């Protein structure tokens, strides 16, 4: 009976699509300088760490840079994108900001830079996920 329950649970999980799609999010507000990291995936939280956030202004267009550090000795295939928002928090041209591939070697550090699509954008959100979750 116990075996049957386990088998049914496994089959149900396989059909229901149990891939965790949560990742790490970094919110940046260029007006206040606030930056917060939300680690929604316990798996990813143990593998990468956000070690720095900075932003700049290029002729009126905001630029944000996030530094990502690997916490494992294995190579990781990740994807990240930076979505920008106006002062009211409305996303601006979110579809136009694709996930970019990041190949992070063991214990290595890399940076991810995003440019705002236009001068109205003042807030940014970095979304970081494992490539395997991008089905």
């Amino acid at each position, binding site marked *: 009976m116990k075996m*049957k329950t386990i088998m*049914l649970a496994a*089959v149900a999980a396989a059909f229901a699509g149990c891939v965790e799609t949560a990742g790490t999010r970094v919110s940046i507000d260029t007006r206040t300088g606030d930056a917060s990291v939300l680690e929604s995936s316990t798996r990813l939280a143990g593998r990468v760490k956000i070690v720095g956030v900075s932003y700049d202004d*290029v*002729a009126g*267009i905001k*630029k944000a840079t996030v530094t990502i550090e690997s916490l494992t000795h294995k190579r990781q295939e990740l*994807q990240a*994108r930076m979505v920008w928002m106006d002062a009211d928090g409305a996303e601006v*041209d979110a*579809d*136009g*900001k*694709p*996930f*970019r*591939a990041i190949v992070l070697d063991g214990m290595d550090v890399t940076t991810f*830079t*995003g*440019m705002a*699509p*236009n*001068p109205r954008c003042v807030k940014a959100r970095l979304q970081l996920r494992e*490539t*395997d979750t*991008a*089905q």
Partner: protein
Amino acid sequence: MKYMAIGCAAMAAMLCGCATTVARETQLDRKAMTAALEPQDVRRTVEKMVDSMLQDYEYIAEANGNRPVLDISGIKNRSSMHIDMTSITDSIRTKLLRSRRFRFMDRTTSADDLEFMNDQAMNGLTDQSKAIQAGQQTAAQMYLYGALTEMRQQVNGVTDRYYKFTLNLKDLRTGELIWTDEQEIRKQQERSTFGL
């Protein structure tokens, strides 16, 4: 035992093809499915080029004034794939225009412009003080051009493809290259050990 038999029958029915075709919307950026250039590669290339131009904007504007006027020359496809290069340059132009840092000329609609102007001048319905006269359009100061190239090799069932997309911005007056950048994409596809 009876429940087990019903369960097995249901499973068999599901696996044996009684399912109908189901279409669904999917995300724009998926993980790589093949070694060919895929939509997400094109989207990343467009973003890379636009971000790069915006980061160098001060230098570009210094050469040609505030909000320089650009045009797009053809981008050559030197790869073995059929790719709509105009679609890529359209996306680049859209994002650059929406950044409010550049202006664009569009030579592809020049014939339509003339037709409208002729119509306004000749149809007898348009107030001639408001009709647009020919010879007043601005001129492109710079133009974008580039190429997509490809290298491929196949070793022991592994297909390796390398794509390079290069984009240049040339000053029409001085002939100088004001800005250039390239996006490299390398993809690999292995043939499965099992299966046909």
